[in-house]
């Protein structure tokens, strides 16, 4: 496949980038309700539609529950649908989220991570994404503005793949990425069309047909329910390799590679590994470079795919390492570990008897700072040498 042309470079915020990403994929139905920190995205999309840049049905809904219901219904009718939300909005559409995945609709949604209800918070945190873990969606987490745009394009290609047919959620940190202005390369729409063109060559998925008596996902009875759920879970399993495959195809075509389910940074000869996700990953890279210069053999595993959990690639990356530190930007209620750490610990039998240290930091717009990461690396290093260590640390509580 030939390579894409160079796109236009613009300095825009993460939200605006999200709107561009969606627009370039030509969704037919958009239903998004504004909510901090995503409002600009919903507004920009509405602008694209009213300017004629995007030829889509923009449905003004009165809330996020309706937004997801509109998107999934449009998808069941065969349309390419897009929506965007955050925290309270994500929680408001909780039942519709599960219908979207249960009906196997290839809806793409962007979620600007923000803390969930409980303590009223208008600040960054991954709790909303965690609270939607079991909704059956594919969930991707991004590190910077360019990745937001690129992953939206990849999300449509993944969601609508005939062997996948699952809704995909692209998560980016509210405030840190949603309002972050960076230079971003906006691909040409013709190149995006070409990248999504393979979808047209596959068999069409079933959709509603006017006048024909068919229904989807009605009344799961006994084995019908079990079969549908089994197929859903199998599709999620297949999504793992598919993410690697599409990511590579994206890199081959557009020149930007993200390495699929996880990215490994300086892990080959590393003794200790830091596992992180989202915008904090950028900061972790900087600290790792500094520590490496001081002779510490540390590497980063950036978790990109959260659901399905990239078990196989994680095992391969972490097996044989001397200690692992996991930085969670959220909580796992009912477990003392952070959620990503808790899930990683499920792989302990395959990884080996490696100390896994859980760090909870970066809640409510409090930074995961350079000194914090330095401390994490030091403590994980000590654990690797057999010194005593603290299994779980809430960094903000210790300051």
């Amino acid at each position, binding site marked *: 496949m030939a390579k894409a042309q160079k796109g236009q*470079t*613009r*300095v825009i*915020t993460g939200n605006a980038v999200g709107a561009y990403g969606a627009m370039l994929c030509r969704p037919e139905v958009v239903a998004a309700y504004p909510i*901090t920190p995503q*409002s600009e995205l919903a507004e920009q999309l509405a602008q694209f539609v009213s300017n004629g840049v995007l030829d889509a049905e923009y449905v003004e809904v009165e809330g996020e529950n309706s937004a997801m219901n509109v998107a999934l219904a449009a998808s069941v009718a065969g349309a390419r649908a897009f929506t965007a939300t955050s925290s309270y909005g994500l929680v408001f559409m909780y039942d519709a989220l599960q219908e979207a995945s249960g009906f196997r609709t290839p809806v793409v949604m962007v979620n600007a991570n923000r803390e969930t209800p409980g303590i009223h918070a*208008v*600040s960054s945190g991954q709790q909303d994404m965690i609270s939607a873990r079991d909704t059956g969606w594919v969930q991707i987490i991004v590190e*910077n503005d360019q990745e937001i745009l690129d992953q939206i394009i990849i999300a449509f290609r993944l969601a609508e793949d005939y062997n996948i047919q699952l809704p995909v959620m692209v998560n980016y*940190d509210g*405030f*840190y*990425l949603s*309002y*972050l*202005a*960076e*230079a971003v390369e906006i691909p040409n729409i013709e190149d995006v069309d070409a990248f999504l063109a393979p979808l047209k060559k596959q068999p069409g998925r079933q959709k509603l047909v006017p006048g024909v008596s068919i229904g989807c996902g009605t009344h799961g009875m006994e084995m019908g329910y079990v079969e549908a759920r089994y197929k859903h879970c199998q599709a999620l399993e297949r999504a793992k390799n598919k993410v690697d495959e599409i990511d590579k195809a994206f890199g081959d075509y557009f020149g930007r590679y993200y390495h699929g389910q996880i990215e490994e940074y300086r892990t080959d000869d590393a003794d200790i590994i830091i596992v992180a996700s989202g*915008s*904090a990953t*950028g*900061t972790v*890279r*900087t600290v790792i470079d500094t520590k490496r210069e001081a002779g510490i053999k540390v590497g980063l595993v950036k978790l990109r795919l959260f659901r399905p959990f990239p078990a196989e690639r994680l095992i391969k990356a972490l097996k044989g390492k001397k200690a692992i530190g996991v930085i969670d930007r959220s909580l796992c209620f009912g477990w003392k570990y952070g959620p990503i750490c808790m899930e990683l610990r499920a792989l302990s039998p395959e990884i080996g008897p490696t100390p896994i240290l859980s760090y909870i930091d970066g809640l409510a*717009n409090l*930074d*995961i*700072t*350079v000194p914090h990461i330095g401390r994490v690396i030091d403590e994980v290093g000590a654990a690797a040498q057999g010194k005593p260590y603290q299994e779980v640390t809430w960094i903000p509580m210790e300051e």
Partner: protein
Amino acid sequence: MAARMLASAFVREGKSVASFPMYGFERRGAPVVAFTRVDEKPIREKTQIYNPDCLIVIDPGLLTLPTLFTGLKLESVFILNSPKKMVEQPDKNLKIGGVVNATQIAVDEIGRDIPNTCLLGAFAAATGWLKLQSILDCLPDYLSGDILERNIKSAGRGFREVEVTKW
């Protein structure tokens, strides 16, 4: 918005930039802090800035804030919007101070107290890290028509009229 214009201007000069604001509820008049990083190479850090090389204060009322200068690097720069002159060195870490009555200039040129573009011009003059032309060239990305012309004038006046003190 000013932080984004600054980002655009630096990108025009071939630098890498990452700029983001921190605020809570989205409403007009809410207090805002904006952080901008500039570098030759791509910027990976996504944290707030604790040790700035430069501090730009748009609201002179903030001078009463006791933590305003906390964390400033040695030999850093301070740009202030104020009708008064900068009499003494506000903090020992500062090397360069630039003061300009951006509110007045904005009211004169734009007709409203939006001192942002004026302060960008002052920043360019006081630090020398950015050419005025780069700022003026990126303004059309954000503004157009009459309001663009007025902001161009405001930025130019900020550049020329800022009073720079070196300590």
